[in-house]
């Protein structure tokens, strides 16, 4: 069970019955510039740490969550970066328009020097195969394969469909698929033997100029972007085009990159910005970002660890919330305003509270949504619900502002107001959390720990509790948020006494002990490395 931030207005599951594909809850625009010079963002890479790297017309930058930081620039046109790759050892490879190849480790860049020399035309793609060989595609010299000792060339004289190669991809890390100006070439290079097969217009490819190849979520399927015919699905095992809802009467210009999301394809185009293809509806949405200041040429796309989509576009980076976060503003005629708390429970149910009411949303296997409302108090006396938690018996705890605490049996819909604990009965409940047999509530009068017993399966059975206040070491009675960490320590975000932690029956207040300076703390979170993150007021 996970309690989401109570002020979030958006639900991130698939329940929506109404949503607008073209509207993303959050977009961010980042200018890419250096000393007031405008750079052109050509290509994006996400490294294994999750950092976004930007290959620009003037070198390489890394986005540090605030601004793009320059990593490499040679002050000349040779460092016009056209492609980026991180290999399995964490080495960053950058290909340049000049044919230069740069490697970066620990933010230190060096130019690759090989006895064979480097290509003299633009590097258009870099790929690493399962043998850890690095493949370079070029705009005019075919493909190069670097095995760590030698650089090998594979070009039209070897049977490659064309020396102008736009992209590389490998579904299995062994056979390389090259998108060229004359269709697809399937290349394998083992023990010095080159094997190349074609798939071009004579085989049914609608456009011979293949501009990008991307992974699909379907087995043996890749997504192919073309210069003038849009996007198609290709079965690599059968070497044939897959029939899909994507039609080839494509009016949106050259495809530069494709990212497949669960329901959508996000398509970067040369002249029409980002196009969204909804796989369920077989429909396109253009002007996805709906902002006239966005440039129309999108050269590359990347997803980050959170699921945001990043687009490289002229002098800007644009990020938006793909389909992991959709704007859900109404369902079944109900407009979701003033939602103060949301709970996604362990049975894929969403509990949320628009306009002082409690709603439960579920979805069946066919994708049909169901919405059910509960009246904890009569409709004319609806109360502000501020906290939700589902306990080990499957009962929902409902905290209110001014009307205390309720516990509801989800199956029967019956509920009981927790009257046995005065601070719960009279209190303003700010937060509810729990783990195993413990349920903690925070109020404006301190905190309370409830201890569930087997008999508490019965809704009417009273629950044992212990109340704590600032006198017990909390430091403050105004508690905004409670977090139980993986070590079972209980953390408190207080107003007036910073952070406190409860461990082995004792409180430690970090502010009072001068261990942490912030006096006002709003919320707490634990990351996968068991670090505790603290949001503060004005610090």
């Amino acid at each position, binding site marked *: 069970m996970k309690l989401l931030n109570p002020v979030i207005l958006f639900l991130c599951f698939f329940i929506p019955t109404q949503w607008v594909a073209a509207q993303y809850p959050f977009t961010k625009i980042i200018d890419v510039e250096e000393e007031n010079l405008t750079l052109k963002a050509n290509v994006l890479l996400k490294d294994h740490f999750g950092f976004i790297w930007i290959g620009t017309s003037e070198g390489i930058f890394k986005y540090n969550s605030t601004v793009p930081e320059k990593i490499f620039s040679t002050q000349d046109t040779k460092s016009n970066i056209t492609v980026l790759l991180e290999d399995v050892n964490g080495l960053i490879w950058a290909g340049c328009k000049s044919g230069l190849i740069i490697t970066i480790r620990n933010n230190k860049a060096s130019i690759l020097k090989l*006895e*064979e*020399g480097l290509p*003299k035309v633009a590097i258009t793609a870099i790929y690493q195969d399962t043998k850890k060989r690095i493949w370079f595609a070029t705009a005019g*010299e075919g493909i190069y394969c670097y095995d760590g000792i030698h*650089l*090998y*060339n594979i*070009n039209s004289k070897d049977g490659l469909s064309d020396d102008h190669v736009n992209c590389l991809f490998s579904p299995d890390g062994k056979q390389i698929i090259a998108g060229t100006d004359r269709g697809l070439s399937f290349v394998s290079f083992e023990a*010095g033997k080159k094997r190349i097969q074609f798939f071009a217009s004579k085989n049914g490819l609608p456009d011979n100029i293949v501009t990008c190849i991307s992974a699909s979520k379907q087995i043996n399927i890749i997504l192919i972007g073309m210069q003038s015919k849009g996007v198609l699905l290709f079965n690599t095992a059968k070497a044939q085009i897959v029939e899909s809802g994507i039609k080839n009467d494509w009016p949106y210009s050259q495809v530069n990159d494709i990212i497949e999301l669960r329901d959508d394809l996000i398509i970067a185009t040369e002249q029409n910005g980002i196009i969204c293809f909804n796989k369920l509806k077989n429909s396109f949405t253009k002007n996805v970002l709906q902002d006239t200041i966005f440039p129309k040429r999108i050269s590359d796309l990347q997803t980050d660890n959170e699921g945001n989509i990043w687009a490289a576009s002229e002098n800007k980076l644009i990020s938006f919330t793909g389909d992991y976060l959709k704007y859900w503003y109404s369902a079944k005629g109900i407009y979701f305003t003033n939602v103060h708390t949301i709970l996604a429970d362990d049975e894929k149910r969403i509990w949320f509270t628009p306009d002082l009411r409690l709603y439960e949303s579920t979805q069946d296997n066919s994708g049909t949504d169901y919405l059910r409302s509960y009246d904890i108090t009569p409709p004319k006396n609806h109360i502000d619900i501020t906290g939700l938690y589902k306990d080990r018996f499957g009962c929902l705890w409902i905290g209110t502002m001014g009307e205390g605490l309720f516990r509801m049996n989800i199956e029967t819909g019956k509920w009981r107001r927790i009257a046995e604990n005065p601070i719960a009965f009279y209190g303003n409940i700010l937060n509810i959390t729990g783990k195993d047999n413990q349920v903690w509530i925070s109020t404006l009068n301190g905190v309370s720990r409830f201890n569930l017993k087997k008999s508490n399966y019965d809704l009417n059975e009273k629950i044992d509790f212990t109340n704590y206040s600032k006198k017990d070491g909390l430091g403050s009675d105004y508690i905004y948020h409670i977090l139980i960490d993986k070590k079972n320590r209980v953390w408190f975000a207080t107003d007036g006494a910073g952070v406190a932690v409860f461990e082995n029956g004792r409180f430690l207040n970090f502010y009072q002990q001068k261990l942490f300076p912030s006096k006002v703390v709003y919320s707490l979170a634990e990351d996968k490395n068991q670090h505790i993150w603290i949001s503060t007021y004005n610090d």
Partner: protein
Amino acid sequence: MFAQLKSRLLFILLLFGIHHVFAQNTIGVYMVNKNLISFHSKTELELIKASSTELKGIIDPNKRTFAFTVAMKTFDGFNSPLQREHFNENYMESDKFPAASFSGHIIEDDDFTKDGKYNIRAKGKFIIHGIEQERILQGDLTVKNNIIKMTCTFTIFLSEHDIKIPRIVHEKLASEIQVVLSAEFIKK
């Protein structure tokens, strides 16, 4: 036996057949005039070096193709006659594999018929000790008054050509041999 025959046949083809390969249209073809090809193996214990001026070769700037060959027994300048003997008999097996060769095409699209300096890469089949490896060799060309001067430095990895080094001379013979080639070509 078959490998020996194949190697000899290849040597004959390369050495004497170069003219025939390009014979159909020899206009504008450049032949090696003067040359020096040398190699050295450097280890902590010993520096072995030798050279030959018997490189045969041809470049067709129009087709951007080339072919070179050198007979192994033409290398001289070793530290001792015994070293030369070991080179030919033990390592290169020069009777069995008499020549090294490199043939293929030039990757760059530059027009080498015009005077100028060019950094080029030649992609082709490099054969030594009867073992073929595809290689890209980088070199500099200077074209002036119908004379092409070429310099090229590259490395031969003995293991890639099945040239076995007895354990007893491991410390005296490097596994990577550095080769320096300079040649002047004149228009035929």
